[in-house]
């Protein structure tokens, strides 16, 4: 250890949100010019701790030292002055502003906009070139992929010349390629002497880039170790408090009859062709994984099969008979009636009604289920609650309280609720999008096991994920999507990340 003062030192930080003790007497110190990882279960208190360091929340107790001297951080302004920048888990961007507007927001120089904007535009192009963070300064955020929005968040901090950079689950929404690029950037920043704190649920990333790593659990800091002295397995155990299987092991698939036949499916949305004639099949008892960079039509594929958007053409057969893709029977209800269950990509805006209590969410989409009705007119809430309690038990949703609003569950547990709801219907076909996004490893392991189990019951599963390892680990067949088309199919054991990576970039072996 050098004897230079630590870039960041937190002493005895505590924070409570009403009844919830999010942080309890936490102390850490991070050396300048290092990358420090923080891992922990959903709801462990990571985001809260960082938000306190960034002055977004005020700590109830404790003090903060920056570069050795005591620095009170009452608000984000103070944090920014202290050279701290934070990329939040849920981006803090103004959707309908342009990139450059978002970047200068709060860091304008002068009351007039024009000078700041032109200055920023120039600086942005420089930074973009320097770090390979190309984004068009004048596109609106809402027109950017999450990956690019991520870049904007980072550019914001670089523009403010942050010396200390906090990233809260930055790779949750990134493709492997994007993630690797992000890490190259972090390395560069580190070489420039900047200090970086990285929150992630992906131990691989921790091992790859961090120098030291802290583990949080139930609002407390349980351990801080040199990354080189630890292993994923050990970290996992520290986080969850028990041994975790990091690699899913599954028996070879025993495919049965064809469940889903998709033929030349076409979807256009806001005048853009999202699916340009997709064809594939899934048989009972197999998992078809769809790999691809976000925004190449996977989402639309799930949405159209799930009945959220109409198709412009093509046919889809479920167990042999054709399903309505445009008419009155093309909605989510009729899909479910046909035995199609759907774990949507975005739990918070699609899969759940955040203010609804767990039990209400457990009936979401299945609220017409006769088992949930008391009579012709009224629903049987008691029955739903009872059913929910069972399912929360079986899927180990914590806290195990059917009356808690979805909003107050951690992402991991929110996801478990959705998964429980959909899988317990034991559908003939399960559509799964980003099943483990933003979810801690304990939950990941659990959800993966459930998916495999469903497959082994002889159900067909369509898995969409930007996590290549997830695809590789779970799928029996892998199809790669690029620009609304399927580039080709591979078997997991006969391909590797590089080939898939090339296909995701739109290049087939031949072309490459």
């Amino acid at each position, binding site marked *: 250890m050098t004897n230079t003062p630590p870039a960041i030192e937190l002493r005895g930080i505590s924070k409570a*949100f009403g009844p919830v003790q999010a942080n309890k007497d936490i102390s850490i110190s991070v050396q300048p010019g290092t990358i420090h990882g923080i891992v922990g279960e959903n709801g462990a208190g990571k985001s809260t701790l960082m938000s306190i360091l960034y002055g*977004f929340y005020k700590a109830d107790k404790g003090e903060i030292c920056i570069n050795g001297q005591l620095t009170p951080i009452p608000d984000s302004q103070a944090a920014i002055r202290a050279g701290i920048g934070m990329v939040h888990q849920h981006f*803090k961007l*103004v959707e309908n*502003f342009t990139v450059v507007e978002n970047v200068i927001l709060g860091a*304008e120089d002068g*009351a007039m906009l024009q000078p700041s904007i032109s200055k920023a535009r120039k600086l942005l192009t420089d930074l973009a070139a320097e770090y390979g963070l190309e984004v068009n300064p004048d596109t609106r955020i809402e027109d950017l992929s999450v990956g690019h929005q991520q870049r904007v968040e980072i550019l914001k901090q670089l523009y403010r010349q942050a010396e200390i950079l906090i990233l809260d689950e930055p790779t949750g929404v990134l493709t492997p390629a994007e993630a690797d690029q992000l890490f190259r950037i972090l390395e560069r920043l580190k070489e420039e002497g900047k200090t970086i704190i990285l929150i992630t649920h992906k131990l691989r990333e921790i091992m790859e880039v961090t120098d030291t790593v802290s583990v949080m659990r139930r609002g407390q800091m349980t351990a801080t170790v040199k990354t080189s002295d630890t292993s994923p397995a050990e970290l996992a155990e520290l986080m969850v408090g028990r041994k975790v299987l990091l690699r899913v092991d599954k028996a070879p698939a025993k495919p049965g009859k064809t469940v889903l036949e998709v033929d030349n499916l076409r979807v256009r949305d806001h005048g853009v062709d999202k699916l340009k004639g997709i064809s594939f099949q899934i048989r009972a008892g197999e998992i078809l994984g769809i790999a691809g960079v976000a925004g190449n039509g996977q989402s639309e594929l799930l949405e159209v099969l799930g009945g959220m958007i109409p198709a412009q053409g093509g046919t889809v057969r479920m167990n042999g008979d054709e399903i309505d893709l445009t008419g009155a029977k093309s909605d989510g209800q009729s899909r479910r009636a046909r035995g199609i269950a759907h774990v949507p990509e975005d739990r918070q805006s699609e899969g759940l009604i955040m203010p609804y209590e767990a039990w209400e969410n457990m009936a979401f989409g299945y609220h017409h289920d006769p088992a949930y009705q008391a009579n012709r007119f009224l629903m049987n809430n008691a029955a739903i609650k009872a059913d929910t309690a069972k399912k929360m038990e079986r899927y180990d949703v914590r806290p195990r309280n059917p009356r808690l609003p979805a909003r107050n569950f951690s992402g991991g547990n929110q996801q478990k609720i959705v998964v429980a709801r959909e899988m317990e219907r034991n559908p003939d076909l399960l559509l799964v999008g980003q099943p483990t996004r933003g979810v801690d490893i304990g939950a990941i392991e659990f959800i993966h096991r459930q998916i495999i189990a469903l497959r082994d019951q002889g159900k067909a599963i369509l898995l969409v994920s930007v996590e290549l390892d997830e695809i590789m680990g779970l799928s029996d067949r892998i199809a790669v999507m690029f620009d609304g088309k399927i580039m080709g199919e591979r078997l997991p054991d006969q391909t590797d990340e590089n080939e898939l990576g090339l296909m995701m970039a739109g290049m087939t072996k031949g072309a490459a």
Partner: protein
Amino acid sequence: MDFLTILQILDSTVRLATPLLLACLAGLFSERSGIFDIGLEGKMLAAAFASASIAFVTGSAWAGLAAGIGASMILALLHGVASITFRGNQLISGVAINFLAAGLSVVIAQTAFRQGGRTPALTGNARFTEITLPFADAVADVPVIGPIYANLISGHSILVYVALLIVPLTWWVLFRTRFGLRLRAVGENPAAVDTAGISVVGLRYAAVLICGVLCGIAGAYLATSLSAGFVKDMSAGRGFIALAALIFSKWRPWYALMACLLFGLLDAVGNRYQNIQLGDFVIPVQFMQALPYILTVIILAGFVGRAIPPRAGGEPYVKER
């Protein structure tokens, strides 16, 4: 319909549109910052009363204007305290302010002037009189442009020109200044503003107070320019029409001008053609009086389409739930 008639209708349009325009721009500032405001009506009414009273007492329309702005700002501040500081429901607060203004104005007026909740009629300098722009009379005889300049452009109260100037000003502030950028941001995503180290509360109060100023001018125009004194409930629902215009314009300054002129025009036409006879069938007056509102609906449905309010609108900004 001859040229002169058209001029007269347009002239009336301008007068009717001005209070709407001011209130509409007021609402624009407030709602762009994420604070919904259905209390425009009340603020206008309070301003009308205050301006009329003070104008009468001091005999100066300008003093009246100041008082009107002051009264309106007090209510705006109240709205701010309720919906920003105490994160109350912005709609309720607006409703309350409308009631409050309707009641207080008359109660105070009655106690102060003993004229049944009215203020005495204003005369002379206590009113904003119509000003004639330079050369108006000179060019009056020049065909076409002459009358347009003399009758339509010239000959309005100063406040009309003020209102018209505020449109580009609003646009400029909103889209060309740092303040405007932050104001729009706080209405779209306050968390973004907060994490950027800017005070959400401060910005919103600023917006709400600007709203107060503009409503104040609108009220003063009603009481000290269009008419000569305060009569209870004299805002007569204009605040709500302004609100409609605001949504109509999708919270954009220039479109707000268009929308208000449109409402003004429909109104003027409705006033002008009340007794229309087709053959021996007389179109009911009530139909002609409803026509502006019917047309509004038709235009809205036919040409305007979906209006998406500022994303954070109506939601108090809460960090820690």
